């Protein structure tokens, strides 16, 4: 959801500054450790220069569910062993990150933004402390609305 869009002109350079609130579902796989699916709601600030290059910053809360990467056993007091098929944990999360990209709609009539973003995700309470993990995100954003607008202009 975009909630602000404005043009700023400091000195001679112009750029768009866009602020969004976005919902994202992500997943990573760490062999022998866990798989993690997480849902985040992020506040995102993106600046797009007139030559198409962009930079962005995002931060937001989320929730995560891990799935352990291996058979998980439980042993009861009688010594009976059983398998927990849904082994894993729910964690609260905060993510923050920044990155850069290129908006092809600024120079050519292609409604696509390519970007790369370095995120730091933190999960808690992980063993009564905070787990952090750096994540590199590569993305392509296609805007159907922008595509329509570009078609109308031509």
């Amino acid at each position, binding site marked *: 959801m975009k909630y602000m869009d404005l043009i700023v002109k400091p000195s001679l350079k112009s750029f768009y500054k866009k602020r969004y609130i976005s919902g994202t*579902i992500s*997943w990573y796989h*760490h*062999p*022998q*450790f*866990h*798989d993690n*699916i997480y849902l985040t709601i992020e506040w995102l600030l993106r600046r797009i220069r007139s030559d198409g290059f962009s930079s962005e910053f995002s931060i937001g809360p989320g929730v995560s569910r*891990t*799935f*352990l*990467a*291996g*058979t*998980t*056993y*439980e*042993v009861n007091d009688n*010594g009976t*062993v059983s*398998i*927990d*098929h*849904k*082994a894993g*944990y*729910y*964690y609260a999360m905060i993510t923050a990150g920044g990155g850069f990209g290129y908006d092809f709609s600024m120079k050519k009539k292609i409604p696509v933004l390519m970007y790369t973003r370095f995120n730091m995700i933190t999960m808690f*309470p*992980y*063993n*009564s*402390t*905070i*787990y*952090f*993990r750096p994540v590199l995100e590569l993305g392509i954003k296609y805007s159907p609305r922008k595509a329509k607008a570009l078609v109308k202009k031509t």
Partner: protein
Amino acid sequence: MRIASLIILLLFLSSCQKETITISEKASDVFYVENAGASMRVLVEGNTASNTFILLIHGGPGASSYVYNTSYISRNLENNCAMVYWDQRNAGASQGGSNGTYLHLDQMIDDLKKVIEVLKYRYGQNMSLFLLGHSFGGLVAADFITRPEGQSMIKGLINADGSHNYPLNDTLTRQMLLNTGLSEVPKSKKTAKWEKIIQYCLQHTGNFSIEESQQLETYGMKAETYIKSVKKINLVGTVLDHTITDKSPLTSILVNLLYSEDSNFNKELAVSNFSGSLYKVTIPVLCLWGKYDFICPVELGEDFYNKISSADKKMVISPISGHNLILQDEKLFCDEVNAFVLKYR
């Protein structure tokens, strides 16, 4: 569409929990044992077909088993038996939620017992199982084998630079730092560093607080690096070198270590002492010690060796090792352990 993808992914992840048990000369199985708020990672690597298993109880608390899984041990020990690398709760790749209240010695003994029960469930009740305790792992092992059911579950114990008595440990560390310091000052190039240690030992003479105990350990770690004949190792480098092959979760290893190092658990450990109950130990025991181990000095090993009642016991001292004989004198370690398990399995 997104929801459908999510459901497919969840079904796929649930199916990842399929049980695989490998009986071969080159097994590598990872599984988890869940107990009291913690899911503890266990890696079984090596010759599971031999039916001989060595369960490593790593140091710490809060260190991990990753550091012990070297290529030398893989080539020279895991060909004869299977090594079981267990990450204790709040350590290494072990995971959980808000579980700090369970971090105490009794719980760790219960964890160990359950890990053994799962091993026997997976690989057979008649397996030959040995415990290998290093440093803090030596305390867990000492607690376990002095309990009634402990010795009946294993064939023998390997105690490598382990601590079974923390108050005595601190006294012996101080004494060794002081004596070695005084003899090293005239001949060592590290005079200033030794003098600092000597000063500290002269000012802190006994009834050590937890801070003093931790400071003595820090000096102990540094002191062995001042001795020329001790083989230098880089523990952090060892973990980093194997990051890709071992698929190590580095940040988990780090946050678990930091949490456990600062936890209240250390207050309980500071007064833990099993010297008085070691007479109950009758199973075969192999003690391996570094001559220059300041953290758990040789005299601590001798206290352990002299107090157990085992008829089959042996103590070997490595002249090139400090506190990490397993990594500093890998040949001696593998030769002695191979001979020990071959004899008593």
